[in-house]
């Protein structure tokens, strides 16, 4: 029964007292300037998603900032406990809605670790291919919207043109533009169609040129330099203490990338570099992400060149649906299909944490199974959730305009933050 009545009372701090409970005397400068609390509310043209920021301003300088989240909390983790493992995949894809392949990969990787299921090589390469395409797409959306925040409005259309090309590729391989549930437990949903290879090569041929064009437009632009260079630099130790990973950490000089450090899904077969920044300011974050796009293109080409023949999904029929044509001839296939579709496969009890490197940092899925066909706990360690804590040291004592630019360079995705 629900035990809401018997829980011990927790320290309740009502909302309005939040300002009073937070000491601000130490950050007030001088007796003349008053501190103003400004609410950059959940509906704001510049916050990326519904992020609410309570900023304490002295004039135009930000002295303190409190991010308030939860405006798009969807209870995904609770929903996932209610569904069979196969059905969790579409639900968990919708967490970080720009990196859906990564969400699915982290979850499927966790389930495969628990099941000790071997993923065929071709499936691993296909997963890497689609994940790197997703990384490129995520960085394109990031660049388009960030440049929009800075005022370079036309970048939006250029970046979304590339995004549309990538979505065409996704539609070709899986039938859906977003949230494709292409990555399944044991491999991928379907083999790539003929003509996919040619189209991806066409995309990869022009993408580095496009990145160079974007760099020509923005990298030496005086406005971009003035707004991003030297702004919001945080030292590496603070970032590590705050648990920041991904391009934010790499722009400080720390080359931590799970694709190289703890390779998963055949990343060790590919030869690519990790772009690393020097000072860790906004400009470095900007350049690091653009360079990552170029490295992703290299990985995709190596994937295509080295794509092995074989199965696109594991052939262990206890966990993976048999191909349709077998259902007409084989009784076991029919029974497996029936069991998998109605109840789902059972996973041996255990707990596992599976981290991967996504466009924003370390996506980790904690999966606990109690032996039944539904997961007992699915938790996604979302990088944006942890990276958001770094906003405060970044924007301390900067202007509001720098706050907006820093938020853009932080690349928060509220779907992942709020889950």
């Amino acid at each position, binding site marked *: 029964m629900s035990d809401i009545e018997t829980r011990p009372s927790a320290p309740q701090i009502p909302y309005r007292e939040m300002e009073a409970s937070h000491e601000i005397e130490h950050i007030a400068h001088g007796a003349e300037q008053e501190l103003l609390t400004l609410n950059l509310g959940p*509906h704001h043209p510049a916050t990326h998603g519904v992020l609410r920021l309570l900023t304490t301003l002295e004039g135009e300088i930000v002295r303190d900032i409190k991010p308030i989240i939860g405006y798009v909390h*969807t209870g995904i983790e609770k*929903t996932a406990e209610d569904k069979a493992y196969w059905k969790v995949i579409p639900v968990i894809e919708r967490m970080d*809605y720009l990196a859906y392949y990564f969400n699915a990969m982290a979850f499927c990787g966790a389930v495969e670790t628990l099941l000790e299921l071997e993923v065929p090589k071709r499936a691993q390469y296909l997963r890497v291919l689609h994940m790197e395409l997703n990384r490129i797409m995520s960085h394109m*959306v990031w660049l388009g919207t960030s440049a929009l925040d800075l005022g370079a409005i036309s970048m939006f259309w250029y970046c*979304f043109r590339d995004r549309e090309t990538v979505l065409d590729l996704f539609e070709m391989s899986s039938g859906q533009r977003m949230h494709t549930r292409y990555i399944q437990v044991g491999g991928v949903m379907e083999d790539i169609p003929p003509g996919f290879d040619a189209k991806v090569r066409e995309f990869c041929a022009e993408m580095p040129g496009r990145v160079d064009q974007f760099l020509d437009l923005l990298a030496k632009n005086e406005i971009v330099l003035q707004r991003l260079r030297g702004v919001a630099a945080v030292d590496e130790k603070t970032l590590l203490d705050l648990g920041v990973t991904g391009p934010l950490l790499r722009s400080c000089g720390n080359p931590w990338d799970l694709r190289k450090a703890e390779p998963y899904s055949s990343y060790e077969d590919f030869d690519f570099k990790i772009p690393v920044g020097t000072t860790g300011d906004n400009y470095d974050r900007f350049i690091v992400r653009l360079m990552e796009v170029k490295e992703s293109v290299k990985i995709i080409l190596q994937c295509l060149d080295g794509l092995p023949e074989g199965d696109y999904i594991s052939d262990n029929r206890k966990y993976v649906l048999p191909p349709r044509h077998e259902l007409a001839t084989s009784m076991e296939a029919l029974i497996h299909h029936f069991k998998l579709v109605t109840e789902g496969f059972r996973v041996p009890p255990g707990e596992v944490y599976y981290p991967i490197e996504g466009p924003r940092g370390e996506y980790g899925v904690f999966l606990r199974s109690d032996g039944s066909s539904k997961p007992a706990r699915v938790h996604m360690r979302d990088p944006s959730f942890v990276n958001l804590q770094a906003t405060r040291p970044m924007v301390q004592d900067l202007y509001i305009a720098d706050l907006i630019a820093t938020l853009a360079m932080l690349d928060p995705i509220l*779907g992942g933050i709020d889950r």
Partner: protein
Amino acid sequence: MEIKRERLGAGADGEFRSRQLRARQMLTGDLEGADLDKYVEERVLTTTMEKAANWARANGIMPATFGLACCAIEMMGIVAARVDVARFGFEALRASPRQADLLILSGRVSIKMAPVVRRIYDQMLEPKWAIAMGACSSSMGVFNNYAIVPADKFMPVDIHIPGCPPRPEALLYGILKLRAMIMSKPDQAWRTRYGGRGTEEFVESELAIEPVAAHSIGVSGGGEGTSA
């Protein structure tokens, strides 16, 4: 060479001749009464003010930038170049609700966000419309749980667009359906459209009439000719 003269008279040519004569009468100022009305109507595109206003409103919808979750990315897709909403005139996405007249609820509305959305909808000025884009805002979508609210529960929605997320073309189709809806129906406040009379908030101390009477004004439908 023989010049043939033909008399313009009966038959199909008679039509032409009578029009010519009427035009000459118009120029000399001899056309009056019913003839004058008929003449003007045939030539000048007249319409009622309402229809003109609806035409203007429907072709100049300004959506409010209100992206919540994944559907927001596809909504950004319609502003992008491939599915271009600017060809219909709707590319002016206004950030301020005071300047917008269409709220595209793109994404899942959580219980923490619902009052915020409602407040923004209330801040918009009449006439205003709302589109629930995607499965999560129309119904509960993929997630049927404690944390989200279907948009119909707290605000009136005109068009629901299914999809998870709907393609930009689907969203555009929904917006065009809304445009057709606006053009065909005379303009109405949302309370008339959805039978929300009686929910207005007045500062009771400043009312000149009884609050009960104030609330019952317009209960019968406000005179507009649709079945709200």
